[in-house]
């Protein structure tokens, strides 16, 4: 276990620098001069331009810029936007909203997804199984923004069940976006749970458990269920990436001032520091989540450690 941990941690280092460098390089390859863009139609004195350039390290070679940037990141400094506001402040302000949204979506997809998967998996080929397979397929096929608008139209506008825009109504206003955000993952989790349950139900230890007279409930609920959750746990890490991408779309559609919308607004305004800051942060969160899940995976499934 110790060796596995060390190896996994060491792998994390190049991935961290590689991914952040890639994003940094791509963002700073933005065509156009951000200082000029800042000035707009007004004439900006050369001295002011020079001052701004040196303040934002725009004169350094790209790699040096990256080095300075990543050094700051380690000190919790994600840079400032062009109005002099620290990106970290923006993130601190927006992050709770996105976390609330993501947690709701996460809970929604976990509870309903796993339940649906179990209902489908215990009786393969039965009515519930077909229902779950078909409905999840439909949910997976509908792109998240189409689903978002449909939900807005039907549930919000037609029936007035839930608010469809903004976050003024407290938790209630997060419900619909969270459901939309979690829906695709819900479908994947349901299918994954079903598949792995079906596979495990056919294994020898289940036959043994049944043969020694355990009730069906105990066989499925304790023996099979715990083993079937292993692939679902790994999926959760991948899912986090999808949730972040989805959050950008969902927050745009439902007008939620979270971190996803901040990324999008940053890209539109060519505010490189904001985009790089937030995306770096998100990628780091994503990578750490993957690391944790890998470790969790090794705890749950001892076979992994001896690779």
């Amino acid at each position, binding site marked *: 276990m110790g060796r596995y941990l060390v190896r996994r941690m060491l792998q994390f280092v190049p991935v961290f620098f590689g991914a952040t460098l890639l994003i940094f390089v791509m963002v700073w390859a933005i065509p156009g001069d951000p200082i000029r863009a800042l000035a707009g139609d007004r004439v900006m004195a050369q001295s002011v331009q020079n001052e701004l350039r040196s303040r934002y390290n725009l004169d350094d070679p790209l790699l040096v810029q990256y080095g300075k940037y990543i050094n700051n990141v380690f000190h919790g400094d994600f840079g400032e936007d062009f109005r002099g506001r620290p990106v970290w402040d923006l993130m601190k302000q927006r992050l709770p909203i996105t976390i609330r949204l993501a947690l709701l979506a996460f809970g929604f997809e976990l509870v309903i997804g796993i339940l649906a998967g179990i209902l489908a998996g215990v009786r393969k080929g039965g009515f519930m199984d077909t229902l779950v397979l078909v409905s999840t397929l439909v949910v997976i096929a509908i792109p998240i923004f189409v689903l978002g608008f449909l939900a807005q139209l039907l549930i919000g506008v037609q029936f007035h069940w839930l608010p469809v825009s903004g976050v003024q109504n407290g938790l209630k206003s997060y419900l619909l976006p969270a459901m939309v955000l979690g829906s695709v993952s819900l479908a994947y989790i349901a299918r994954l749970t079903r598949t792995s349950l079906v596979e495990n139900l056919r294994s020898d230890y289940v036959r043994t458990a049944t043969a020694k007279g355990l009730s069906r409930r105990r066989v499925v609920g304790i023996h099979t269920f715990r083993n079937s959750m292993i692939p679902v746990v790994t999926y959760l890490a991948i899912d986090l*990436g999808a949730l972040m991408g989805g959050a950008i779309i969902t927050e745009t559609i439902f007008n939620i001032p979270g971190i996803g919308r901040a990324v*999008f607004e940053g890209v539109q305004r060519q505010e490189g520091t904001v985009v790089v800051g937030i995306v770096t942060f998100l990628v780091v969160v994503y990578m750490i989540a993957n690391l944790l899940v890998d470790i969790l995976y090794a705890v749950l499934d001892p076979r992994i450690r001896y690779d």
Partner: protein
Amino acid sequence: MTDFFDPHERQSDDPDEEVGASLPGTPLAVEAIEAEPAMGREGSLYADAWRQLRRRPMFIISGVLILILITMAIWPGLFTRADPRSCHLEDSLLRPSRLHLFGTDLQGCDYLARTIYGARVSISIGIIVTVTSTFVAIVLGSVAGYYGGLVDSIIARITDVWFAIPTILGGIVILRSLFRVRGLLQVSLVLIVLGWPTMLRLVRSAVLSVREMDYVDSARALGVSDLRIIRRHILPNSLAPVIVYATITVGVIISAEAALSFLGVGLQLPSISWGLMISTAQNRILTAPHLLLFPGLFLSTTVFSFILMGDALRDALDPRLR
């Protein structure tokens, strides 16, 4: 497996001809074995799969839908007479009627025509991206999986770096930053760049599981070249999950393109794309919902067909599920 003879040995010894000569059986069977050095098992896997697929409603439905969509992408004129780019402002935002089955958009263009012409971009991007990234993944993945060691480690680390960037996030950053003009090629390129790592991992693990097979060992012991082992023995036996995943990927990529275009970092006007149409429609969701519904329906149906097809293929190709 029912191999009482070992065709690999002969096969590898002297490619192709001798096996046929030394084997009993009908000419057809010989041919099958010659075509697939991975032997009867492989041929019959796909033959079995095909026999099973032909009877599956899932496969027939998705197959027909995909054929229609591809026809629509190649010859959109077959489905509509109207020209999607000839618009009459006085017809702006008409509801669906007999004259305009899907109504018209803000510029007064026939929406049926635009929806049908939109298939071309989606299908092209889906197929271009999937084929290219699958090809890259097969080349790099089989090299990584087969040779292992340092080569594998290097390829794995590069893959890890790209893999750490979620598709939509990366897509926004790259598309917005690198390209001022974004057409089909630029969007495809970015989706390829972000898409190959997942595929590569799949190919690599499939190759790894086949690499340890006895027939690969025997081929190697007989001095068959690496390239030939990969091409004739390993790849045919590890392609099944790749085919399944690639089919689903077409749908996923189409959906991703639409999402990027929707966010305003994908295709740009005057391209005709479902994502763009939905993006334009979002401000009029209350007054003209048909602008959202029709492209949304077509987009969802397209993605649905490819995912359904992938599911059907998986059921047929994965022997464990039989």
